[in-house]
């Protein structure tokens, strides 16, 4: 390594300094290209993380549901045929059979962080003359908040929902003209009713959810929806939301239950995200190619300009490998310095973006995490691209016949 290091480094950097304008131009080119890639990557990952975070605010990554009820056709007697039209059965709210056992099994899975049973069904909130249709969700606060961060979304009151309490969204509170401490009647289609007190108001940042969802204690929901002791669904939180479908498939394989991952239930969002990733990848590839071609063309010219110097270096004992490395170092160094410049540029733009892209209420439009790892990856990738781009001119330089090179 010691033998390698200095001769090649010294010659490479002197060659670059000698063609300073060329070197600076390509560094600026790499910087602009690298800056675009880093800025776009940070912006896109921030945007995606934001959408994912907002979606998973009010939706569990995996939901386990009881199997659909199916109509069973009559079994034909031997030798006889039955002409029948089988209509699909209407689905009623049912509990998952032995949900406690399933909850425990799923909780033990390696990538599962939290599991919570819920009872969810339709109902009406009545207050005075006003009535609103809602989705009643019965929860066990201690486990539910580990899956859905409802406790963090409470903007007024508290979240430790008891048997006679209800938590409502901001939109519903506005529609009903209600506030903390007000009483509501909650009714279901079966005729069950309960009078509950609003103890908290939440804001998920989604009008539909804030208008439609109400949260009560699990036992209250079981009574209201006629599912005493039951759970209509089990919500599951996993370590990496993007592995939810794989884990859902594993759960599905061992049971006859319906297991839905948020990836399947938000297919449209994922299609859009994939399109965005593809576009970003294509832009990155083309910018990378442009940068690589820029470096390669500068070095091709450099090899031609310096063929006499290469010839004399070879004549006085420099090996082909040493000449090769001189040009590889130039490619890598220009790309590395350019990518540092690009990272600084991208960082500056990201900071400006964070200051400018704000909602009307002054909150950030979305949070962009400026990850040092992104810059490190960009610099590493740029250096590798630079070295690869330099490979062809470097090989050409190494293959130069010293006699021909000096005569040229």
């Amino acid at each position, binding site marked *: 390594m*010691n*033998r390698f290091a200095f001769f090649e480094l010294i010659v490479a950097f002197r060659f670059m300094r000698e063609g300073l304008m060329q070197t600076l131009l390509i560094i600026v080119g790499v910087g602009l290209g690298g800056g675009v890639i880093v800025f776009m990557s940070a912006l896109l990952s921030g945007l995606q993380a934001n959408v994912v975070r907002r979606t998973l605010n009010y939706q569990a990554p995996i939901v386990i549901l009881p199997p659909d009820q199916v109509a069973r056709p009559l079994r034909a007697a031997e030798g006889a045929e039955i002409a029948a039209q089988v209509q699909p059965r209407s689905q009623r709210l049912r509990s998952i059979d032995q949900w406690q056992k399933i909850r425990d099994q799923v909780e033990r899975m390696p990538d599962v962080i939290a599991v919570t049973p819920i009872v969810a069904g339709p109902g009406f909130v009545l207050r005075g003359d006003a009535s609103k249709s809602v989705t009643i969700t019965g929860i066990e606060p201690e486990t539910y908040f580990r899956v859905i961060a409802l406790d963090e979304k409470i903007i007024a009151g508290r979240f430790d929902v008891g048997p006679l309490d209800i938590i409502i969204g901001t939109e519903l509170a506005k529609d009903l003209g209600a506030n903390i401490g007000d009483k509501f009647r909650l009714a279901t289609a079966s005729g069950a009713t309960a009078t509950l007190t609003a103890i908290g108001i939440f804001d998920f940042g989604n009008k539909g959810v804030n208008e439609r969802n109400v949260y009560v204690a699990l036992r209250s929901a079981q009574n209201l929806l006629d599912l005493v002791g039951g759970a209509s669904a089990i919500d599951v939180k996993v370590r990496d939301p993007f592995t939810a479908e794989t884990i859902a498939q594993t759960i599905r394989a061992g049971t006859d239950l319906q297991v839905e991952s948020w990836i399947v239930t938000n297919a449209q969002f994922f299609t859009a995200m994939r399109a965005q990733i593809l576009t970003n990848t294509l832009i990155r590839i083309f910018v990378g190619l442009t940068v690589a071609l820029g470096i390669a063309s500068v070095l091709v010219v450099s090899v031609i300009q310096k063929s006499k110097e290469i010839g004399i270096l070879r004549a006085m*004992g420099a*090996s082909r490998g040493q000449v090769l490395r001189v040009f590889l170092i130039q490619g890598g160094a220009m790309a590395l310095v350019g990518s540092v410049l690009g990272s600084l540029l991208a960082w500056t733009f990201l900071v400006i973006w964070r200051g400018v892209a704000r909602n009307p209420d002054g909150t950030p439009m979305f949070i962009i995490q400026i990850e040092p790892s992104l810059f490190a990856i960009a610099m590493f990738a740029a250096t590798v691209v630079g070295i690869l781009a330099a490979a062809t001119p470097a090989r050409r330089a190494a293959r130069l016949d010293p006699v021909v090179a000096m005569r040229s």
Partner: protein
Amino acid sequence: METLRLSEVRKSYGIGTPLELEVLHGIDLVLERGEFTALMGPSGSGKTTLLNIIGLLDRPNAGRLFIEGRETGELDEAGLTRMRGRSIGFVFQYHYLLPAFTALENVMMPILAARGRPDDEMRATAATLLDRVGLTPWRDNKATEISGGQQQRVAIARALAMKPALVLADEPSGNLDTQSADGVFDVLREINETSQTTFLIVTHDPRLAQRCDRIIELVDGRIVSDRPNPNVVRRG
């Protein structure tokens, strides 16, 4: 002690084509240590081809070449490069200095290529060599900042950096005025006499050839004359 031996060395170009041309027809030559020899001949006589073969920059098609007793035909590309770096110094008609480096750095370059990293001993060797060719005041000047004669002296110092057994000089004063040419020749001669380095100098100039110990004439790829120079009295 032999520094160089050539035995039946032949070189052809365009082998197997209608334009095949043999430029060296079985050259036999021995240079003893410390000899200061002129190689003369008209243009196209094969002088530069012979010098390139001796300098391991080209390979003969036939014959054997020994440098310091070691046959070079068995060496691969890397071996030839190593031997060239260690045993042979070159001085060309054009100096071929690296313009991005100072005079001192240019002289250090062959040692740096061999050892990989600079050190004080390397700097001291280069400084001593520049002193011997009378360029100490210009050691930190870029190669482009000194005169043609000075550039050629730097090239001579660079050729001696690895303490080679053999220095090949191809028209070393061809681009210089008479005064500078004499100065460069004086430097070569002084080095030869003090360090016993063997020199083979290609020159068209009979005046300079007359200052060598031995004069070889090459015509059409054949040595037609190889004689000691009675006019030279060695001081060493």
